[in-house]
């Protein structure tokens, strides 16, 4: 039972990170029907920004928790700026081009960013400091659930609650939903759709940066390639849940996290990805639109 609990909590933590990143994919897709392939790189850039910030702050002798908070803040700002800029230079000029063009632009941008970080840093893994302190009250549960995992779970939960409040209760959030449902009509009531698209990229990038910092601090090392792996996983989660659906992205993240965790724990860690993608294939066969997604005919 304890082993089960451990796997359950591990899957939950992992899933919450997938969910956080999947939200960026799904929100962008909901508004402009584009798979934003640079999203994983935004996450990776967030992690590197946090690493650099943390290194500097460590020199000044700040404590772990304040470094975590400040490094996350800088990462969020930096990644958001990247997300905003990428949309403006790589996607916006192609808004009225055939659908494949922005997709190719996205893949190109993703490769460019990977190589840019590869050249600026190194291809090797670089150590990332553990920024989450060991909480005393977690001592007794250390073997099934670590302080770092608790921090991940708490942060992702808070961030997701804030996000749903923004989307549900603010005017910008309402405009985002309206734009996703009917872009032309949103323009006709006076929504500046370009602004909404920018806001969506900024929010998605901020979430990815938070995810990047949390994971980097948990795993303890990063390189230029982590965004690709995390990106594929989170994209899988978004598709699982139903791309375009916000609750779907969260659910898809958890489903994927648990699948991986239990498959690793009960079968073999070699098969982690096999199970994840087998699940994706199964869902796509039986529910092509994803768990919570709407089929095209429903969405008129």
């Amino acid at each position, binding site marked *: 039972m304890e082993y089960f609990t451990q796997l359950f909590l591990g899957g939950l933590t992992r899933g919450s990170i997938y969910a956080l990143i999947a939200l960026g994919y799904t929100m962008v897709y909901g508004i402009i029907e584009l798979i934003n392939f640079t999203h994983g790189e935004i996450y990776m850039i967030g992690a590197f920004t946090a690493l650099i910030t943390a290194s500097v702050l460590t020199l000044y002798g700040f404590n772990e928790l304040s470094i975590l908070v400040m490094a996350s803040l800088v990462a969020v700002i930096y990644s958001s700026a990247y997300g905003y800029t990428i949309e403006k230079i790589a996607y916006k000029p192609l808004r009225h081009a055939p659908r494949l063009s922005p997709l190719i632009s996205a893949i190109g941008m993703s490769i460019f960013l990977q190589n840019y970080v590869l050249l600026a840093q190194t291809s090797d893994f670089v150590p990332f400091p553990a920024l989450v302190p060991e909480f005393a009250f977690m001592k007794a549960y250390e073997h099934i659930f670590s302080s770092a995992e608790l921090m991940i779970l708490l942060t992702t939960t808070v961030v997701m609650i804030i996000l749903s409040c923004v989307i549900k209760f603010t005017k910008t959030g309402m405009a985002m939903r309206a734009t996703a449902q009917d872009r032309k*009509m949103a323009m*006709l009531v006076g*929504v500046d759709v370009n602004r909404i698209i920018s806001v969506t990229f900024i929010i998605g990038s901020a979430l990815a940066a938070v995810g990047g910092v949390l994971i980097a601090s948990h795993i303890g090392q990063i390189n230029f390639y982590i965004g690709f792996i995390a990106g594929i996983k989170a994209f899988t989660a978004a598709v699982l849940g139903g791309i375009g659906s916000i609750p779907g992205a969260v659910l898809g993240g958890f489903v994927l996290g648990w699948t991986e965790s239990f498959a690793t724990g009960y079968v073999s860690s070699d098969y982690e990805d096999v199970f994840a993608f087998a699940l994706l294939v199964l869902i796509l066969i039986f529910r092509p639109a994803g768990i919570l997604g709407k089929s095209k005919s429903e969405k008129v």
Partner: protein
Amino acid sequence: MLKLVNVKTSYGNIEALKGISMEVHEGEIITLIGSNGAGKTTTLMSISGITPPRAGEILFMGRPIHNMSPDMIVSHGISQVPEGRHIFPELSVMENLHMGAFLRTDREGIAKDIDYVFGLFPILTDRRHQAGGTLSGGEQQMLAISRALMARPRLLLLDEPSLGLAPKVVKQIFDIIRRINTEQKTTVFLVEQNANLALQAAHRGYVMENGRIVLEDHADRLLSNEEVKKAYLGM
């Protein structure tokens, strides 16, 4: 109030508007009639800035608006109820109304106007928390008009408000259009397939064929015009 001068609009290399000129005076109801594919919807979308004209001028209150973005045009006082209503399906009735008031910041005024449109269409009051997509066709048309009114437009563009509705609902909606015109002094630009109905409600009318304006006159004179009778009134 609104003036179109030799407006040309194209989709790719298909020219949908081949140089049309029209004028709408403050306070009137004008109608634009024409058969399928004549270019009526394109005319309204050109005014709203969704399909900006390739050539020509559109002036509103003397100001050129043909280079403005759609949100700027709304903020100058032009709202549109598009063909097919385009209710935001997953937003509630209230949220749809608030989207109509998107560019306004006067909370009290917005609340008052919500009461006003609920007064025009009492049935929407009972549906206020229902998702827009679950309303009936007639209710959606009422909501679409209400949403456009929430912007407090000076000029209201209506694209085929009678489409697919029962005669009783059509009558109700046309009564409201007249009422908005007299009570709120809102100028109305009405596009209709149902020429008879439109010409009875309007002061003046334009007839469009193949992207060109072919006739322009007082509504009652168009109603008794032999060609109009034959082509659009089924007589």
